[in-house]
């Protein structure tokens, strides 16, 4: 049984279509990355899955239950982190987690134990006795993640979980999410940080203007939707070489950038077979000093831009 699924999920806000016939199937114990530009419908979908919002039409199932508004049974099985988590500022971090534990009717002993574990997990143990009002945005985000995990949820919904975190904090949170997946938690996360999604997600769904553009494994997506890319590094400027490449019919696009003494090219091609033969030959004939040459699959960002960027009006 899938951990999360929906059929024909549609949501209208007046004349605005926030979700348009969304259909998803997310298997158990995976990290699902939900990608899309601002206003694509990611948060709307998350709110429907968590029972905070009702669809105009369509049905959704989470953790084996059909999603209906205010279902306490469903809410006891899930965890939810909104995009900008808000807390009662007069509480300390530990008091807030204790409050959340009480809402799940956990015993005092379990709450105390779980608070200690979660504060340690999100690196807030030293600040647990400080009022939330004094927390930085990153600390609030980490507290938000901790509260979402209080009930050891089977399905975790995270709306932009890393958006407020510094690079180190992001790495820690992403590692935590991977560990949670290993402990049999299904994670549904929306994000605009494509590198994070690429790093930890098993499956991604890309949504644009309320419609699901694609749902696929990350590797499969890169193979399926992107043109292969060749990376070339020279030890001196190669403007004439860039010009030469751009004049060839089998070359789609050349991005060039200087980094210190290195001149890096990223070449997208239309005909991989021709490129594999021709590029080494052209490099050899250019007289430039080659530092590195490799064929790489495009990043998720490039796939995303190809799928969503091209649809812009």
């Amino acid at each position, binding site marked *: 049984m899938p951990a999360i699924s929906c059929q024909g999920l549609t949501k209208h806000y007046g004349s605005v279509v926030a979700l348009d016939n969304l259909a998803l199937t997310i298997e158990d114990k995976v990290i699902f990355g939900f990608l899309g530009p601002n206003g694509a419908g990611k948060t709307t979908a998350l709110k429907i899955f968590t029972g*905070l*919002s009702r669809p105009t039409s369509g049905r959704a199932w989470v953790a084996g239950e059909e999603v209906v508004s*205010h279902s306490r049974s469903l809410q006891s099985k899930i965890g939810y982190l*909104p995009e900008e988590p808000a807390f009662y500022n*007069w509480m300390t971090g530990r008091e807030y987690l204790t409050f959340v534990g009480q*809402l799940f009717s956990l015993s005092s002993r379990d709450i105390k134990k779980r608070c200690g574990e979660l504060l340690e997990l999100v690196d807030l143990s030293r600040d647990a006795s400080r009022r939330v009002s004094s927390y930085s945005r990153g600390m609030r985000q980490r507290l938000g993640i901790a509260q979402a995990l209080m009930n050891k949820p089977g399905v975790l919904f995270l709306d932009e979980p890393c958006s407020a975190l510094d690079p180190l904090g992001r790495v820690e949170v992403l590692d935590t999410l991977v560990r949670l997946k290993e402990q049999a938690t299904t994670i549904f996360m929306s994000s605009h940080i494509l590198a994070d999604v690429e790093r930890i997600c098993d499956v991604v769904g890309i949504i644009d203007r309320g419609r699901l553009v694609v749902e696929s494994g990350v590797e499969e997506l890169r193979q399926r939707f992107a043109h292969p890319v060749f990376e070339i590094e020279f030890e001196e400027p190669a403007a004439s070489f860039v010009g030469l490449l751009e004049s060839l019919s089998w070359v789609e696009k050349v991005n060039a950038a200087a980094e210190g003494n290195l001149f890096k090219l990223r070449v997208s091609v239309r005909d991989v077979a021709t490129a594999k033969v021709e590029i080494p030959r052209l490099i050899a004939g250019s007289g430039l000093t080659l530092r590195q040459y490799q064929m790489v699959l495009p990043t998720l960002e490039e796939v995303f831009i190809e799928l969503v960027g091209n649809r812009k009006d």
Partner: protein
Amino acid sequence: MSSFFVLFKKEFRGQLKTYRFLIVIALFFVFGLGTPLLLKYLHALIPAEDAVIGIPEFTAADAVQSYISSLGQLGLVAAVLVAMGSVAGERESGTAAITLSKPVGRGSFIVAKLGALSVTFGAAMIVGAAGCYLYTVVLFGNPGGSNFLIASLLGALYLLFCLAVTVMYSSFVKSPLAAGGLSFVTLVAIAGTAGLPGIKYYSPGALVSWAEDVAMAGGPNPWWVLAVSIALIILVIVAGWRVFKATEL
């Protein structure tokens, strides 16, 4: 512990930690002490030669009546100001979305708020009434314990009505200011109906004038006002819950 008690405890602790509890208590205390004090020394404050009309000699009943009358105005304003952000503020800040993503009923969420506000204003009423009674006895003599108690209870019921209406509006809209404005206009309009023939025997606004009559040991007992007020309190709580239940966060 049921989610209602968890939420009630949280609400009440919030009022303590944000000093709202202390501020309301202090307000009612000052107001309870101040009313008989003001009446007693009004002659000293306004010398007879400066007064356009003669200032009568006040009695203990006048002091209590004046206290109850002011309660209907100052209590209304305090209730609206303290309760207007109770639900709307949580929706606006986003705390409601996290709390209500847990296994918590929306009815519990609203009733816990009204419950905690009622405890705060109930405690403030006790402190204010005790202050008023004490100073009235000292400055004017005994106003009559049972009349004072009944008048205070009627005043407390009026405040509960004001709180329930404000919490209801707070659950209707996302802006605390809009909730406060709607509540104030509604409550002032209801207070205005206390003087209208026919309606005055049913309007919750008449609770204050009834309490004033009790303080002066006279006037009829419009029991329908009591019944209608209690029914309306229940009705506005249910309305607030129904609308909030249908609200998307």
